[in-house]
């Protein structure tokens, strides 16, 4: 089972082989409220770590989602088109956003593990 890692912008990433699945955290979906639309990157697009590559639209506002690591987008989660509410109900599972073929696995080292992320969120109050 791949380890989950988090960014300070509340994205998560799970790596299997050289493919990283990315989404937003449970904390993020709670803050956003009901998600009504997700704009995802096109497969084939190259993204750099921290580059804005998706937008999640909630009832209240649109929020940018950043690539947690660099690489090539190989798949976007089509299920979110029909059911954007998956982001709220299963943020770490079926509500994933996109998959990236990793360019540089060492970028994961700078991300927070589960414990570190929960501590980080705890401080946000």
């Amino acid at each position, binding site marked *: 089972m791949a380890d989950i890692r988090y960014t300070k912008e509340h994205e998560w990433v799970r790596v299997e082989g050289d493919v990283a699945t990315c989404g937003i955290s449970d904390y993020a979906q709670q803050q956003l*409220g*009901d998600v*009504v*639309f997700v*704009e995802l990157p096109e497969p084939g697009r190259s993204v750099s770590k921290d580059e804005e590559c998706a*937008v999640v*639209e909630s*009832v*209240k*506002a*649109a929020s940018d989602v950043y690539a947690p690591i660099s690489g090539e987008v190989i798949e976007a989660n089509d299920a979110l088109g029909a059911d954007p509410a998956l982001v709220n109900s299963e943020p770490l599972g079926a509500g994933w956003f996109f998959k990236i073929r990793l360019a540089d696995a060492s970028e994961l080292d700078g991300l927070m593990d589960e414990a570190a992320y929960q501590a980080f969120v705890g401080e946000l109050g």
Partner: protein
Amino acid sequence: MSDSSAPLRKTPLDGLHRELGAKLVPFAGYEMPVQYPDGILKEHLHTREQAGLFDVSHMGQVVLRGPDPSAALERLVPGDIAGLEAGRMRYTQFTDESGGILDDLMVLRREGDLFVVVNAACKEADVAHLTAGMTGHSVEYMGERGLLALQGPLAAEVLAAHAPELATMPFMSGREATVAGVACLVTRSGYTGEDGYELGMPAEDAERVARALLVDARVKPIGLGARDSLRLEAGLCLYGHDIDTGTTPIEAGLAWSISKRRRTEGGFPGDTVIRRQLADGPSRRRVGIRPEGRVVAREGVEIADASGAVIGRVTSGGFGPSVGGPVAMGYVEAAHAGEGTGLQLLVRGSARPAAVAKLPFVPQRYYRGA
């Protein structure tokens, strides 16, 4: 603008909101519930299906008294106040010398006075404006008071269980009624496009009335987030966004609130400008906008025509839960205001197709009974 370092004010229902698990945010200098645990989507849909209870106690309640408050108020608003029968209410605006809108308001004519409700963000300015403008009359800002809105198709049944006579009170009328043992001023009006009521009462009694209404399983508490999506779907203006000192009532599509007599006679600030726009048509108009896809276009988004020339701006926009897609309102140059006109919305650097849509986005369901 309120001083950001001043503590936020609380409505009389603050304790109840916290108890109900509300997410509180600053609004017009108050801490207000933007949503409760169910969330904005569910709160919005519930209001259109059953009954939603809103705390709008932050708004300003004002009483105007004197020898002829209607004539005096007509010097500040384009609405027909003199022709209002006792027990009836009307929507109007405070205008300035350029015909711009200082605030919008509701006016209820009572036997001996006028009862006015103004927006929270403008209430201090409005009271000063009234005081300066209504010479020979008294302007009493009622201070901290409770104001609850009960809106939705089941609102009448819910309220009738407390005061049966309220079921048949006409839309846009007001009367006294006792609800949960509290003497309330009740109007049949609202900001959602649904049937509904607003109840005013002393601050210390607000919680009691709210709890009595919430005991009914058909009633849920609703926050400002859903209040905004409900009024947007209903095509209703939000002051400071869809209307402000830079828009006239004619540009805003509110000419219906200015009667023939007032158009002819004038006698309110900006009457010349407004009369001219009524004769010649305004150069821009507020319209409903339906983005074609799923992308939401919010306030501030530029509107372009087919050639890419900017012809307007979105003033309110969001996701419409009852519509099931994005909805917006904005101003466009008059030539582009026809229903069905193709538009482009410049969202996050790219042009998204949209069209001018008829308002409201959902059918109005005001009470049309006897």
